């Protein structure tokens, strides 16, 4: 029988790796996911996050490492023996079965009594608000409804772990926001663990208890959303978390922290990972770089677009550095401005 038991403490990935021929798609990933936790695997396409998810599901064999559910090693098991549930990117509903049979598929596999299957399917369909569509085929449903079927099919088996592979990427913007709230609501209700793969940092920030940022098949940083947002540990992560201004420069100690030279001007910054002297990379979010009369950086506006609440602009300094900034009042191309950022929001990394 499957391992479908919710009474587990943690899923542990121990240095797992996966190679496709000479290509190492996943390397040395070590991670523990606790019961009830919502973990997002975040990274650009090709970073290995989907490979990691497929390895956890059992759809891909590992080439290194092992996977443990408490003290049971599960990586030699096939996907059908792990008892997990998965929501696929394109939903992967069974096209020849109606909604009810799609949702009940996992329970039939577990050979549950008919009455129990019927009851639990009804409950799951009610939970995703799909009761009236129970007898439709997937092809007759809208994208959002198919998504709900896929979620119902996953949660009805009461799995210890739900795996989600970019489940919202095929939906339009409005529906995506609705389903995002829905997924979190259902997760809170059921209390299982969820591993959620996405390339959308907003999605990861709003849904996850912890975010795992991946790049080139390896884990770059693990932490709660607030920490990743405010303190990315690596310039790569900063880049991915929306720090659009990344400038190579020099750093030196200054009273109350460090100072860096950006576009010919000196800025006070906050060192990350002991970067206090020598070559450095400075990371600043556009939202934190704003014009004011006494700001240190002198630049000329190259372009600006209105974004509703504010203006998003690009300015070019005398040395050619391009800086992304935000302004509350209209700025026009060609206009000379002075830009600055608070020291706490100027992150300084040692250049490698």
């Amino acid at each position: 029988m499957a391992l479908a038991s919710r009474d587990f403490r943690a899923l542990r990935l121990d240095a797992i790796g996966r190679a496709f021929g000479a290509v190492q798609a996943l390397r040395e990933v070590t991670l523990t996911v606790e019961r009830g936790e919502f973990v997002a695997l975040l990274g650009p396409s090709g970073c290995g996050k989907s490979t990691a998810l497929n390895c956890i599901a059992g759809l891909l064999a590992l080439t290194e490492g092992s996977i443990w559910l408490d003290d049971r090693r599960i990586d030699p098991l096939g996907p059908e023996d792990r008892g997990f549930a998965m929501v696929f990117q394109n939903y992967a509903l069974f096209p020849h079965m109606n909604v009810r049979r799609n949702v009940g598929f996992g329970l039939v596999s577990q050979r549950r009594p008919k009455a129990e299957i019927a009851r639990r399917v009804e409950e799951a369909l009610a939970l995703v608000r799909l009761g009236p569509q129970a007898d439709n085929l997937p092809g007759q449903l809208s994208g959002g409804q198919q998504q709900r079927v896929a979620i119902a099919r996953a949660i009805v088996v009461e799995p210890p772990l739900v795996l989600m592979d970019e489940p919202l990427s095929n939906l339009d913007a409005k529906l995506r926001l609705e389903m995002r709230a829905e997924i979190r609501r259902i997760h809170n209700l059921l209390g299982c663990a969820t591993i959620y793969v996405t390339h959308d940092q907003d999605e990861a920030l709003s849904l996850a208890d912890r975010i795992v940022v991946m790049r080139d098949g390896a884990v770059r940083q693990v932490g709660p959303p607030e920490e990743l947002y405010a303190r990315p540990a690596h310039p790569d992560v900063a880049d991915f978390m929306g720090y659009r201004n990344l400038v190579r420069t020099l750093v030196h100690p200054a009273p109350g922290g460090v100072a860096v030279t950006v576009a010919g001007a000196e800025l006070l910054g906050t060192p990350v990972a002991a970067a206090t002297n020598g070559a450095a990379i400075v990371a600043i979010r556009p939202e934190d770089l704003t014009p004011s009369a006494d700001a240190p950086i002198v630049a000329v506006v190259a372009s600006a677009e209105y974004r509703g609440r504010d203006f998003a602009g690009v300015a070019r300094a005398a040395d050619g550095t391009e800086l992304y900034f935000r302004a509350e009042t209209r700025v026009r191309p060609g206009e000379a401005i002075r830009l600055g950022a608070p020291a706490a929001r100027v992150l300084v990394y040692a250049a490698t």
Partner: protein
Amino acid sequence: MNSAAPLPETAAPRAVARAAPLRTRLRARGLDGVTLLALPAVLFVLALFVYPFLYGLYLSFAPAKGGALANYARFFSQPFLYDTIATTLLLAVPVTIVNVAAAVPVALRVRLMRHQRLLTTVLVIPITLGTVLVAEGLLTYLGPRGWVNRLLLDFGLSDRPIRLLHNYWGVFLSLVISGFPFTFLLVLSYVTGIDPSLENAAAILGARARARFARILLPLLVPGLAITLALSFVQAFSVFPSAVLVGAPAGATRVIAIAAYQAAFEQYDYSMASAIAMLMAAVQLLIVVALLMLRGLVYRGPAATGKG
């Protein structure tokens, strides 16, 4: 939600994890239970196609009497045998050229039709019925009392029945009737694979029909045509039933397949029969390789001049 500190991420059983089991390593290379599903088919084709071929090759070098090359020496010293190659080529080459030359213009027209299905369905009939039935049909239709001769006599186009059977032309016609639809359907599938917007683009740029054919369609069709020619040729080259039934199996249409059949089933000389079958395969292979090499030459040409 759960914001407790994660468990320590050092793992005790790492030593165990290092030694991946053989099954896991095989799975990582794509070898698992699913891959094994291909095994019966592979073994079947090896046993009943590759092995007989190799066995036939071996057998052809092991004649009942004489040295290893005795069969081949005999084949190439007796006109009765070696002439079959020329006889077969004399049938297969013109038939292939006629079929492909007719199929290309028809396919290019049919491509523009909206209701192709009826025509393709009708043309599938002679392919499905096969050469034996076509031969029997020709015997009735082209015979001295058949409709064709009736027409010629009644309209005074001829004063006696013309002879279309039991000679070269009977086999030729039977190979056109079953071969043209086959060639046509192949060419049509290649032609419909060409994006019609390419031809529209050429037309907008001022290319007339002949230029569109020569500079756009033909270069794109060449790879498919080479394969069509090759397949049509090997089919015509291995002609057997119509060469016997509507040809002159002892004379003008004594094709190589007849020689192989007689060696095997009339003289029970399997060694000689194998040798002839191997020669048959060799001639086919030679022509196919030549066609594919020619395609390589032709295909590079237009790609270079296309820029001019």
